Every structure is written in C-alpha cells, then in structure tokens.
C-alpha cells in the first residue's frame, strides 16, 4: 500500500465517521453514504478496479470516471442542501410570522 492510499483511506474513514456522528436520522441517507464510503475505500485499495469499470463504461482511465462521478455527486449534494435550506427558511418564516401576529398592536382609539 502506497502512502497516498493510506492518506485517502484515512480521509474517507474520517468523513464517514463525522457524517454518522452528525446525521443520526434518515436511514436512506446513511445507507447511501455508507455505500459511497465503501466504494471509495475499495477504489483506493484497488485502483485497477476503477480502470476496469471505466473501460467497461467506455471511459479510458479510472481516475476520469471517479472525477465524473465526483462532479455528479457534488451537484446532487448541492441540490439536497439547497432544498433543505429552503425548508429551513420556510420554518423560520412561519416562526417569525407567528411571533409577529402574537405581538400585533391595534390602533389606539
């Protein structure tokens, strides 16, 4: 095992651990992430597999395939985070609106 492989494996392990610590809910998300983490680990340990898969899919180098999938993953991540952000905004608005209505002042007669 080369030093870069050790380094990458370590990073993958840390990310997976952090993720599990922070997000305890949403089973699907966790399984999905576990799968991503596992494939990352496998590809680091066996880089030639990436190339084999890439070739099967019509991509020359394994690294290119990983790059493409990584970009797609980033896009997906952005989408999920954006949607969550909107949800949080909506909730914040509801809360602020309720407070505002509770403290509304009628005109002095």
């Amino acid at each position: 095992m080369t030093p870069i492989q050790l380094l990458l494996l370590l990073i993958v392990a840390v990310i997976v651990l952090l993720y599990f610590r922070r997000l305890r809910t949403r089973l699907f998300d966790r399984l999905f992430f576990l799968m991503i983490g596992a494939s990352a680990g496998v590809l680091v340990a066996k880089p030639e597999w990436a190339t084999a898969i890439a070739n099967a899919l019509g991509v020359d180098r394994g690294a290119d395939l990983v790059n493409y999938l990584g970009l797609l993953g980033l896009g997906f991540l952005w989408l999920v985070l954006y949607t969550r952000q909107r949800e949080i905004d909506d909730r914040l608005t509801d809360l602020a609106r309720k407070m505002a209505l509770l403290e509304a002042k009628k005109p002095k007669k």
Partner: protein
Amino acid sequence: MAKKERGGTFFVVPAYNEGQVIAETVRPLVAAGYSVVVVDDGSSDDTATKLADAGVHYVRHPQNLGQGAALQTGARYALGEGAAYVVHFDADGQHSLESMEGLLDMLMGGDVDVALGSRFLRREDRAAVPRARRLLLKGAVIVNGLLTGLWLSDAHNGARAMTRWAAEQIELKENGFAHATEILQQIHAKGLRYVEGPTRIHYTEYSTFKGQKATGAINILIDLILRRLLK
C-alpha cells in the same frame, strides 16, 4: 363604498426602513376610514415610532424576511381581523389611494376575485413610467407570462386588491420580491378571476432610490426558476 363600511377593507403596507415616509403614506388611508396594517419587516430605523399615533395596526417581524413574507403576514393578520377586502399598498408612497379605490370598485360587482394594477392601460399612466423602466417591465411581462400563464399588460407594480376569499386562497412562500410572480402563479393555479385596472405610479426620487433595481430582476428570475424546479 360608504365611509363607515371602509373599515372592513385592509390596506397591507409592508415597510422596511421606511420611517422617512411611512406616516405620510398611511395618513390618507386612515383619514378615509380604511383599516391599515403596517407590517414592519424588522426595520432598524424609526418606522415604529413614526406610527405610534398613526391609527394603524402594527405588526413587526422579529427580523427582516422580505416583502413577500411581509405581505403574507399582513394578509394573515387582516383575515384574522375579519377583513372583507385586502389591498397591497407600497410604503414608499408610490401608489395613490384613488387608484386603489378604482381597483376595489372592480371587486364590488362580485365577478372578480383579484384586481391587479397596471401602468399600461391609460396613456397618461404609461407616460409617467421612466423609459428605461418601461423596457424592463415589458421584459418582466413576458417572463411572467411564460412562468405563470397569466398574460398581463404590466408586471410587479405592487398595487393589488382582492376579496377575502382570494386572500384566503393565496399563500405566498416567496419571501423576497419573487412573490409578485408567485401571486400570479397562484391566481392561475387556483382559478381566481382577475382583472387589470389602471394605476398611476408616482416615481419620486425616494421611491426610485428604494425601489427595485434592474439587477434585482435577474435574481428574482433565478429564484423563481429554482423554486419551480426544486419544489
């Protein structure tokens, strides 16, 4: 409308740091006997003190949320107070009471749920719109038509009057300025009956300065498209 019946008509005035003009803006409305609810969108200026004796209902967001959110809060409040009609009215003094009464009259017959102000129905109103803005507005009209299916003569001038029923149907989720297009989307989606009525917008130096800039239009468009795609 007889003056004593006017209390059931609520003018919703969203205000964010409009202390300079807010008292002046609401005075004629209150004097005419209408109910006015100012939604202070988390202002950091003296908007609240300026309104202390103005005879208006005052609702304050604990923090700034945006004009769309303020209109929604105001409508919710007005409905809670038993409003028969809800009117959207800008705080910067660019709308006239006279125009809004024209829109309200259109609702009286009962054939219409929402009356939308337009600067492009009368020659003199149109002439009052600065030329650069006219071009921008025509662009916005096309974008609105494509996004909402409602083809109007004007876009985003903020002057609207609606019946209680329509106000109950419309629920704004766009907190920012994209709400103006969102309202049209909901009118279309809920099959509300609408009409356009003539409005004159007074472009004072103040309202032009505080008003939306052309660059804002691009942000609004992006908001709308994202919202549409990611719903």
